[in-house]
């Protein structure tokens, strides 16, 4: 250390602020390559397209402008790792009434802020510029003869070291109520290994909790090993230490040896029997904010506004205002598709965030909000 050929004097003489490149050197490549782990961080952000991230692509934001530092501690919360040195929120700059352009909708949109995270509307799809891994089955690893097939993005579906993958570009996120706290399984923690799926991380929140908001996540699914007797997750030894390494999986392709060595390294007992288990991780999506004109439109979530009755349920009709036009203004998936994004399946969708799955009886305009249940002048037989 450091790498040979690095002129440290030159480095020291050119010390300066961090950049997207310096933070991204690690954070864009998490999981072993570009955009694999963090769906909303990729090397694309070195020279980003405005459509992919308006802060970095339009306004040339560096990471540290939001992730402010104090005594070398960097503010930010991670959904994947427990350690945190302070939080960062869109609202730090945008305030809790961020819609201000004098549009007819500002009042309603600012009310939405109490229940909906910014990126739910302002980044309706994730991994929109580089495909990310959404499925990783470690149990399939080890077949050196299996030829990886390329998917529609040109990404391989297999690697003998790592197993089977699925990649996605521009998919719809998974939405969940989230109050800023995560629940996570830590190393050595007992789990119910008879469950079909175990969440390694999951958001804490409830429709009944006033500070929880509907928040977008990348759901990373996979299959990994658990100790069948000790009931905790196993850590394999992967990278060979040197030429003489006899236990590293990526050299010897023997899970048993890899688990014995790996668990020894982390100081936990390995019973000698393991089983494969499906695990999910919720990764909060916070970057890749699109230009405001590409936020979800009202009708993309509220099916009730698609019919004849719209804003005039409550507001008087005005000849000067085209309610329909107002309600339909927003993300145009057809335009995004034309630009090469894989969003064909999202064109003309309604109930985008799936109200029932989030605990509502249905579209809140018809069935009432989570706290206010005001009738909206809607009659079932008068639609």
């Amino acid at each position, binding site marked *: 250390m450091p790498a040979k050929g690095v002129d440290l004097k030159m480095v020291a003489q050119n010390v300066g602020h961090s950049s997207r490149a310096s933070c991204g050197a690690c954070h864009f490549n998490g999981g072993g390559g570009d955009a694999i782990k963090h769906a909303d961080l990729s090397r694309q952000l070195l020279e980003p397209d405005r459509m992919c991230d308006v802060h970095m692509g339009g306004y040339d934001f560096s990471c540290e402008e939001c992730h402010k530092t104090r005594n070398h501690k960097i503010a930010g919360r991670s959904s994947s790792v427990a*350690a945190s040195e302070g939080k960062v929120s869109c609202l730090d700059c945008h305030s809790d009434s961020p819609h201000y352009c004098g549009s007819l909708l500002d009042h309603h949109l600012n009310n939405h802020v109490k229940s909906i995270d910014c990126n739910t509307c302002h980044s309706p799809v994730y991994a929109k510029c580089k495909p990310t891994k959404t499925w990783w089955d470690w149990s399939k690893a080890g077949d050196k003869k299996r030829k990886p097939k390329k998917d529609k993005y040109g990404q391989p579906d297999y690697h003998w070291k790592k197993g089977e993958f699925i990649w996605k570009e521009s998919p719809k996120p998974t939405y969940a109520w989230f109050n800023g706290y995560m629940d996570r399984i830590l190393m050595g923690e007992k789990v119910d290994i008879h469950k079909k799926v175990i969440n390694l991380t999951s958001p804490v929140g409830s429709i009944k909790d006033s500070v929880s908001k509907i928040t977008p996540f990348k759901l990373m699914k996979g299959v990994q090993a658990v100790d069948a007797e000790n009931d905790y997750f196993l850590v394999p030894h992967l990278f060979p230490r040197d030429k003489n390494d006899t236990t590293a999986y990526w050299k010897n392709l023997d899970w048993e040896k890899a688990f014995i060595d790996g668990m020894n390294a982390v100081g936990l007992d390995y019973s000698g029997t393991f089983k494969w288990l499906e695990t999910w991780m919720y990764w909060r999506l916070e970057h890749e904010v699109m230009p405001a004109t590409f936020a979800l439109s009202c009708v993309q979530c509220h099916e009730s506004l698609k019919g004849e009755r719209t804003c005039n349920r409550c507001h008087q009709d005005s000849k000067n205002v085209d309610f329909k036009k107002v309600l339909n203004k927003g993300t145009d998936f057809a335009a995004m598709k034309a630009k090469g994004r894989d969003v064909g399946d999202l064109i003309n969708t309604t109930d985008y965030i799936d109200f029932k799955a989030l605990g509502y009886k249905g579209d809140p305009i018809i069935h009432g909000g989570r706290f206010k249940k005001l009738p909206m002048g809607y009659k079932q037989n008068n639609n």
Partner: protein
Amino acid sequence: MIKKIIFYSGFMILVAALSMAQVWKAPDQEKAKERAKERVKFIKDYKDEDNILRKIALIEKGISLDDVKNNYFLLDSPIIKEREDHYGPVRFAHKRHAALINDCTECHHYRPKDESMLETTRCSACHQDSFNADHPERIGLKAAFHQQCTECHQEEQNGPVTCTGCHLKNVPDHKDLVKLADNSDAFQVTAECLRCHDQAGEDMLKTAHWNWRGPSPYTVKHRKDVQHGKGTTALNNY
């Protein structure tokens, strides 16, 4: 010969175009940068209006948020940088402030005496150099910015009030500050950094990026722990 000249000049233009195309620029930021560079003519005479009456007058004239032409400014005036250049530019969300304050006269407190000019002008039209002997009543642009921003942020208890709350600090050129022999090793370089930044070295040792563990205030059931992180207990499925 002429053919050759045409060919080579065409070739040079092509190379120049290609190299220009390779320079990535953030479009909104670029526009703001260009605007920040502009110098405008000094307005000597302003109309001395009572602020309360001016506010009403603007409302009566129908000047509103819709008249805000520029949402975003970069405050990076050459007028200030001429004298000192310790801090980076400030991002200023103009329309957002206009909407929040809902009173243009809070900042655009006077108008030019010349009635043919616009009601609202940019700060640097009236506030320029700090020490203008002809206009001792006029504070300079730097003072105007700081007085306007800081006082309002303090009064409203909203918005940054410290230097680094708005600016990134410019890093001084370290070419001459760093005194190292060629081919210095990592320990020598670290010692040289610590010669001036000893506290920064101490701070670094306490960070999650250095230790790969740290406090976990946002993980339920572990909110008071300090030992979790990638280097210790983190699990993942990739």
